[in-house]
């Protein structure tokens, strides 16, 4: 009897896998071989370019920040231009804890930064996510501007315009010192934190919760009509995204050993948006590609044309907007599909 039952179970499994639609859904979340590449590349970078580790740190932080934005913007379709609010909250949390000697253990302060930024995300999300479209865009911008101004005016605590300088942190696990000249500890810590956060986000977007976020992005009214608690889902997503952005901000503060108002400004919010659009949103790895391309362009173009490097970036963005709406990864995807269908045709 049990044999018969299990064999019929196998049969229905086989039937499911026979169906291409079911197969796609059942296998989508599996880890592909190429997903190891970014991490291998990051480790190679560590050994091959010891003189460029601060650049690497900056890159990893941008990637993490962009991954957090991808969850809100790419998956749930929350249009925001104020994500630096959470990056800044995380950065100032870490900065103030360290500056006033309250707590300087790097990993736990990052957790506190996540909680603080997540709380700001939760509270602002409860209000903001009643709106959508341009109204939402403006309100996210306003939230960020309010926080920036608060950081500016709270001079006694935040250092105001000058920020908080010369932060020091205790060694990671009590063993590995932060060295400002050779930031190997910072690099490995940032990479490790990025990995953990990325695995979390990846799990999330393939989960039923992530599927419902995609549904909200694709058709808000229909999600209401299938009985989804849409606003609760959006607020939860926004808070999680904010918490991860806060971790990115915290890492940024640790790596630089300072915080200032640039953590909260529009430039930072716009940059991460550009990075994500460049790489391709709603596809996890767009953040990686976008950050690498953006940072490399910034680095090399600024060497060649120190005064006008943003012109090159602008041109690239125009091209992306015109010919590759889904970013560099989307373009790659389209070319790959075309190649495959061409090969299959004759």
């Amino acid at each position, binding site marked *: 009897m049990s044999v018969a039952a299990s064999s019929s179970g196998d049969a229905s499994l086989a039937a499911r896998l026979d169906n291409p639609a079911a197969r*796609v859904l059942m296998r989508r979340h599996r880890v592909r071989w190429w997903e190891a590449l970014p991490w291998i590349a990051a480790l190679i970078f560590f050994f091959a370019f010891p003189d460029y580790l601060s650049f690497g740190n900056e890159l990893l932080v941008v990637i993490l920040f962009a991954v957090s934005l991808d969850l809100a913007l790419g998956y749930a379709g929350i249009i925001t231009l104020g994500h630096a609010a959470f990056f800044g909250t995380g950065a100032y949390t870490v900065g103030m804890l360290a500056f006033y000697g309250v707590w300087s253990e790097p990993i736990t302060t990052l957790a506190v930064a996540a909680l603080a930024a997540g709380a700001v995300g939760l509270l602002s999300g409860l209000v903001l996510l009643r709106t959508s479209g341009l109204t939402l865009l403006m309100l996210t911008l306003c939230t960020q501007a309010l926080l920036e101004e608060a950081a500016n005016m709270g001079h006694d605590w935040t250092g105001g315009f000058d920020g908080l300088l010369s932060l020091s942190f205790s060694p990671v696990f009590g063993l590995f010192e932060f060295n400002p000249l050779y930031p190997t500890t910072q690099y490995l810590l940032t990479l490790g934190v990025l990995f953990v956060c990325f695995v979390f986000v990846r*799990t999330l977007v393939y*989960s039923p919760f992530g599927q419902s976020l995609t*549904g909200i992005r*694709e*058709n808000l009214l229909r999600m*209401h009509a299938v*009985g989804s608690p849409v606003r609760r889902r959006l607020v939860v997503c926004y808070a999680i995204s904010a918490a991860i952005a806060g971790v990115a901000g915290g890492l940024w503060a640790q790596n630089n050993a300072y915080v200032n108002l640039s953590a909260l400004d529009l430039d930072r919010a716009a940059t991460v948006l550009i990075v994500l659009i460049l790489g391709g949103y709603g596809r996890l790895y767009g953040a990686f590609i976008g950050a690498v391309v953006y940072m490399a362009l910034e680095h090399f173009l600024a060497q060649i044309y120190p005064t006008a490097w943003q012109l090159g970036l602008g041109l690239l963005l125009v091209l992306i907007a015109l010919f590759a709406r889904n970013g560099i990864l989307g373009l790659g995807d389209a070319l790959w599909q075309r190649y495959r269908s061409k090969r299959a045709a004759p």
Partner: protein
Amino acid sequence: MTEFRLETQALGRQFGALIAVADIDFRLAAGARHALIGPNGAGKTTFINLLTGVLRPSRGRVLLGGRDITGLPQAERVKLGIARTFQINRLFRGLSVLENVCIAMTERLGAAGAMFYPAGRRTDVIDEAMALLQTLKLADAARHRVSELPYGRQRLVELAIAIALSPTVLLLDEPAAGVPSAESHIILDAIERLPADIAVLIIEHDMDVVFRFAKRVTVMVGGRLFAEGTPREIEANAQVREVYLGQSPMRAAHG
């Protein structure tokens, strides 16, 4: 005495000075096949929106199985068994047909808040969704993006999502609207095969559909209920004919 699945009492809704619907006393029995007809602007879609909770009524009550649900938001009414389709498709266009149905089912099972396992592991959901697509003759399109399907089959996905919610009351807002007549039979066949105990209310302009499908017909004019009866009674009602005069789809179809 018949038990009414869905009932409204003196239901009304105003937009500013405009009275969209007023004084609606309406009853839908379990297993009903009921059609709601009326000229454009009669308030039919507003009425549906009041039933589903998209709009809050200005006055009156909505009862589901005797329970007052007037104050409940849309999502909770869905959980209690009211599902609808839309006059204009509202689908997850960028996703596959199968995923469209899976999203609705996952939501119905209360599993859509789960964060820490892949959606693809819910093979029970996938199996049930595939079975539903099979009954609607959509199985061959399961892996296609909705946006790639012809309009008639998209309307079928619209229906599939609503059925996936296992409703006890199903509100169909012009299910065959915009579908070329050569394809409309696939929608009608699907509606005819709906489980018998679901109470179905259909808004429809096409009198062929109404007469083929409905056991009772309600006519709405100017935001009020105008007449109710069997299709034959409605067809024979001189006042109803007058309302439709000029459009005369009834005579064209059954004259």
